[in-house]
């Protein structure tokens, strides 16, 4: 009889019962699985990790927590009290909110709810109120992420970005499917002028896979959008949704190609989440786990499994990050220069790397050690640009940060949860909060699974 080992106990949300149930994480042949003990029926175990060793090394570790300021009282129990509540274990890291419900695609994998019968755009005053709530919670918050729908279809997108910049957000991220940017050079120029950071979803360059994922072959538009972003030198994060049996084989070659582009600062891989109006019905060859995505990324020259770390404060099944120095198409993991715990700390509380003075000091130490131990001279050349910029006395702090961003690539694995794997331990650590005009801030996966469909601006209630 094959052996099984219980690695953890947790609580999981049952969509069918509408309540939290006991669940356990079990290792057995085939990987590590989340088993929900729902009395209403035997829910299928869900793959959490392909490797027990990986799970033990990465997930079964002590975690730092940061209690939220101004929490809501816990009345009904997680995840019914999101706001966040007194039992939440993370404060705001990345505020992300929808500025429109309008979209020019209807992707079969889309994990959100968008009502197509009534267009909704947030007003500038709505955005200002949300911005004020974010700053009230964290006065030094510098990053904000706009999503939709399709944010580029908001008629006042440039004004929204300008407003947020004026509020002190130095990094305004705009999620997009790229369809409008592919043909609207004026918008690209406007976003570049405001130093916006575009988050482009790019899941495939294969027409057949594109039809499966997006319902249409939009490969040419994605390519044109990439060119437009490069032309305008717009800082870009590419989001790739990894789907088993559909596009996972494209990840390594696509990441290799993207990391060589100067304007692409980071690549985020989101494992397919089967939620939302379309995504919950999407059929594929099964789930793909975080460690499997990391293994796929090891197909990129210069990336190795040990390069990945969990940012401080994040749940290890929600965020895995790796940073790379990049120059002339060659990349070198910063994990080979800096201690892993320092990388984890530098990733904490932010979606982008923060190279403060002490980390720069440790970078120089690690660099000298690597040199002393006989590292490849070509690797030293890759680190040269970071070293020059990090200590250039002629640069202002913000200018230095921008230049460093162009020298350091981030690769991130960031799976969302859906109804089958909604783990309350994970949601309690979530710092990706969805703010609204009332000041409430709901963890993103709670929002996508439970809260968005209650908002009539984004979803038409069932009759």
């Amino acid at each position: 009889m094959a052996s099984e080992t219980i690695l953890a106990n947790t609580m999981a949300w049952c969509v069918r019962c509408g309540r939290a149930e006991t669940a356990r994480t079990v290792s057995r042949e085939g990987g590590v699985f989340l088993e929900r003990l729902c009395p209403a029926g035997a829910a299928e175990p869900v793959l959490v990790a392909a490797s027990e060793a990986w799970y033990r090394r990465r997930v079964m570790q002590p975690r730092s927590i940061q209690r939220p300021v101004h929490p809501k009282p816990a009345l009904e129990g997680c995840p019914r009290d999101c706001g966040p509540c007194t039992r939440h274990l993370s404060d705001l890291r990345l505020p992300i909110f929808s500025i429109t419900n309008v979209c020019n695609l209807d992707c079969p994998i889309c994990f959100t709810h968008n009502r197509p019968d009534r267009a909704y755009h947030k007003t500038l005053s709505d955005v200002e109120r949300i911005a004020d709530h974010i700053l009230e919670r964290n006065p030094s918050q510098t990053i904000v992420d706009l999503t939709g729908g399709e944010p580029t279809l908001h008629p006042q997108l440039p004004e929204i970005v300008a407003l947020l910049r004026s509020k002190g957000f130095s990094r305004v991220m705009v999620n997009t499917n790229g369809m409008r940017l592919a043909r609207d050079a004026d918008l690209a120029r406007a976003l570049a002028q405001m130093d916006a950071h575009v988050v482009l979803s790019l899941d495939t360059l294969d027409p057949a896979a594109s039809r499966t994922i997006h319902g249409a072959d939009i490969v040419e538009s994605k390519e044109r959008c990439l060119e437009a972003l490069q032309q305008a030198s717009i800082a870009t994060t590419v989001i790739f949704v990894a789907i088993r049996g559909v596009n996972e084989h494209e990840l390594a070659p696509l990441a290799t190609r993207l990391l060589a582009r100067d304007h692409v600062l980071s690549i985020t891989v989101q494992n397919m989440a089967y939620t939302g109006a379309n995504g919950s019905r999407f059929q594929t060859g099964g789930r793909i786990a975080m460690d499997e995505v990391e293994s796929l990324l090891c197909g990129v020259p210069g990336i190795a499994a040990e390069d990945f770390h969990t940012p401080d404060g994040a749940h290890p099944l929600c965020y895995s990050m790796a940073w790379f120095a990049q120059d002339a198409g060659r990349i070198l993991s910063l994990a080979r220069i800096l201690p892993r715990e320092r990388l984890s700390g530098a990733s904490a509380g932010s979606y982008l790397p923060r190279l403060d003075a002490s980390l720069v000091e440790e970078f120089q130490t690690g660099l000298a050690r690597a040199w002393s131990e006989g590292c490849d001279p070509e690797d030293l050349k890759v680190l040269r640009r970071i070293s020059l910029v990090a200590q250039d006395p002629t640069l202002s702090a913000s200018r230095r940060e921008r230049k460093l961003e162009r020298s350091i690539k981030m690769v991130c694995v960031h799976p969302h949860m859906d109804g089958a794997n909604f783990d309350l331990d994970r949601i309690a650590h979530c710092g990706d909060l969805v703010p609204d005009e009332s000041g409430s801030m709901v963890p993103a996966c709670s929002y996508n699974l439970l809260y968005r469909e209650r908002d009539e601006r984004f979803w038409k209630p069932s009759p």
Partner: protein
Amino acid sequence: MNDLAGKRILVTGGTGHLGEAICRRATELGGRVAFTWTRNAEKASALAASLEGSLSLEADVRDAAAVERAVNAAVAAFGGLDCVVNNAGMSQVLPLPLLEEEDIDLAVDVNLKGPLRVTRAAVRHMIRTGGGSVVLMGSIAGHKLLDVPVTYAMTKAGLSGMAKALASELKRFSIRVNNVVPGMVDGGIARGIPEDHRKAFLAHCAAGRPGTALEIAEVVCFLLSDRSSYVNAQDIAVDGGF
């Protein structure tokens, strides 16, 4: 005394007047010495033969590859490196109107770039050793108003900055860097000093006499030893009080 017992030391310009004294004194104090030379093969052989456990290495500090080979040879022979003395140097007496580009380049290449090349190559190994001491060999010519060649004065003055910057950069690896600043020394590079300059120097020197190579070597060896563990990033004048 065995202040340098167990220390593995590289001295550049080991066959020079000061270099030889440093090699000999360091060996007497228990150190193992590797020294470089460029022209005087005969003297190098004799010196190596007279110093137990020493290593003679032909290397011009202007040649980065030769420096690398010499450092690697010392590391291979000794199993590591703890100390470096950047003693190799040159001087050329030329007034400003006669200075050619190549004269300037030569002085910079030997007196400034040379020590940096040697230190860089050695420190690469010393980081793994877990600490050590680097000594640069400056000159009073770089610090006082004296009738000396400008190329010599400016390059020796540069070593003062090099010591401070390297001491700061290498502090994280417990590697100290100091700059010894000799005054007038009998023999060696000071042999050609005109008599009136010599008298003028001695008139302002508290000791009233030139120093000896051994007196310089004593201070160098002190800086190489752990007895000087709290001395770092300094210009150490050894000039009889000038």
